[in-house]
């Protein structure tokens, strides 16, 4: 792995050719351009060109009031919208000096974990298509619909939930939710175990993924990735455990790690995290205290004291951070989004160099980076 490979040079030898993947390409979750210089089937240099769906979010956020930003944070990464809502609300709560109610904390953990479930399910599904395992994709999206329905029943939307509020959440659990959730999640657990078995026993799949795109712990640290790719390399780095927020302190869960750091382990980490998230959700549903789910009054103009805050959270993809500078007005002075997918995407080109063209799809999809969040 070469760390210098940040830009591509034009081919010099007659045996080298330049291969563009994108911006519109079926293997991609969103538009980006991956330029590869290949010699035969080996990748010599790689460069990722991003910005195709750059929206200027940080500028737009500086022009919106604190409450108006809340639904917009969903759109940073639509597969992790609850995490984004939550980290933003925790940032503003710290600036305002308020604390969410106890029930709201549990509700946020519940929705965060549901969000992680559906993100991982779709991530594995998309990855499965890219390695030519279309059946798994269809199964995964089928499973995901159940989780999405659970999320929709609480938040009222399938993808962009807009659920957390300053000091609470938008609405309470609907009646009969616990039974519904336990039923769906019980089925999901069974299915995921069966899929796990299927993925780890299929010889074709194993040959395609074992030992491909290896990212060791040391390299992952140098490349600055976090989340499942790092945990697949054996580093126990999980902000839920390391910097416990909300009620993760009171909950029992394992940090999933694997040792190999290859494509197979990264997907295995996600599969096992799904089971772990289900366990967390079950605990949440059991332990959830009654009481108010939001503060009495939500003001529609919020003016935090001047100051700054860096809030972060364990997103499905890694460390999601938001750096908010307040100048005392009703709009933030500076809003910086530190996305996990940005770090993961940056680490992709060095990972591809030296590998085969046929593995590009598998490696890129196993990193599970969300283009919308990379570009912001």
């Amino acid at each position, binding site marked *: 792995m070469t760390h210098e490979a940040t830009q591509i040079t034009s081919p010099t030898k007659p045996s080298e050719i330049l291969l563009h993947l994108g*911006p*519109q390409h*079926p293997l*991609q*979750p*969103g*538009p980006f351009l991956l330029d590869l210089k290949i010699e035969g089937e080996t990748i010599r240099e790689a460069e990722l060109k991003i*910005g*195709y*769906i*750059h*929206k*200027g*979010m940080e*500028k*737009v956020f500086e*022009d919106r009031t604190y409450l108006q930003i809340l*639904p*917009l944070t969903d*759109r940073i990464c*639509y*597969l992790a919208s609850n995490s984004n809502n939550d980290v933003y609300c925790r940032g503003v709560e710290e600036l305002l000096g308020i604390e969410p109610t106890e029930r709201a904390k549990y509700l946020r953990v519940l929705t965060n974990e549901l969000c992680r479930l559906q993100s991982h399910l*779709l991530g594995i599904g*998309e990855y499965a298509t890219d390695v030519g395992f279309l059946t798994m*994709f*269809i199964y995964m*999206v*089928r499973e*995901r*619909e159940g989780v999405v329905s659970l999320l929709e029943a609480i938040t009222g939307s*399938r*993808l*962009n939930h807009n659920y957390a509020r300053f000091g609470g959440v938008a609405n309470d659990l609907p009646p009969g939710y616990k039974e519904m959730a336990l039923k769906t999640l019980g089925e999901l657990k069974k299915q995921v175990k069966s899929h796990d078995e299927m993925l780890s026993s299929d010889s074709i799949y194993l040959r395609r993924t074992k030992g491909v795109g290896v990212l060791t712990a040391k390299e992952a640290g140098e490349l600055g990735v976090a989340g499942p790719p790092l945990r697949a390399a054996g580093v126990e780095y999980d902000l839920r455990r390391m910097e416990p927020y909300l009620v993760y302190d009171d909950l029992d869960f394992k940090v999933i790690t694997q040792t190999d750091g290859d494509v197979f382990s990264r997907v295995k980490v996600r599969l096992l995290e799904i089971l772990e998230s289900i366990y967390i959700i079950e605990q949440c549903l059991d332990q959830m205290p009654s009481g108010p789910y939001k503060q009495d009054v939500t003001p529609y103009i919020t003016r935090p004291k001047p100051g700054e805050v860096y809030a972060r959270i364990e997103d499905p993809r890694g460390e999601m951070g938001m750096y908010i500078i307040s100048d005392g007005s009703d709009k933030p002075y500076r809003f910086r989004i530190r996305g996990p997918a940005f770090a993961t995407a940056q680490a992709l080109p060095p990972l591809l160099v030296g590998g085969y063209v046929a593995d590009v799809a598998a490696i890129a999809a196993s990193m599970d980076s969300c283009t*919308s969040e990379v*570009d912001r």
Partner: protein
Amino acid sequence: MEEGGLGMGEIEAELPPNVTVTSASAIQEFIKNSPLQKIVNWGRKNSLWFMTHPMGCCGIEQICVGVAHYDTDRFGIIPRCSPRQADVMMISGYVSKKYLPALKRVWDQMLEPRWILMMGECAISGGPWWESYSTVTHLDEIFPVDIYIPGCPPRPEALLQGFIELQKKIVAEQDRTVIPNPADGGV
């Protein structure tokens, strides 16, 4: 073809007697004005292959609409990966200034007849990023759009409804393939 005059222009004089020539566009013109077009439209409406082209949140719903729970195959709507095999392009997200040339190129690669669905508010108006320095709004002035599907993102059912509306539009011969907007330059 009894109306042998079809498309016969200046070259007529050079041809031997009793031979008539025609051209592809003339045949197309002839079919368009005859009841045959109804059969063609029926065929078109039942094979709306769309291009999987996720660009944002709507892309996720676009993926979901093709699989088990919504199963667009019931309507002959099948996801395709290449623009050359697709009939329908869904603009499913914010188009930035950087992406617009690529999107235009993808659109040019598609074969006629072709349709565009505007999925979600980002495509229709720029959505939450309508004021941003980087996004292109007013995509309807750039592309010949047939169906607008508001929602952020629209449910897969809403997307299906969009397809059904497009089918209705094709049957009614109101779609932009039949009636091009003069502003498009006959796209």
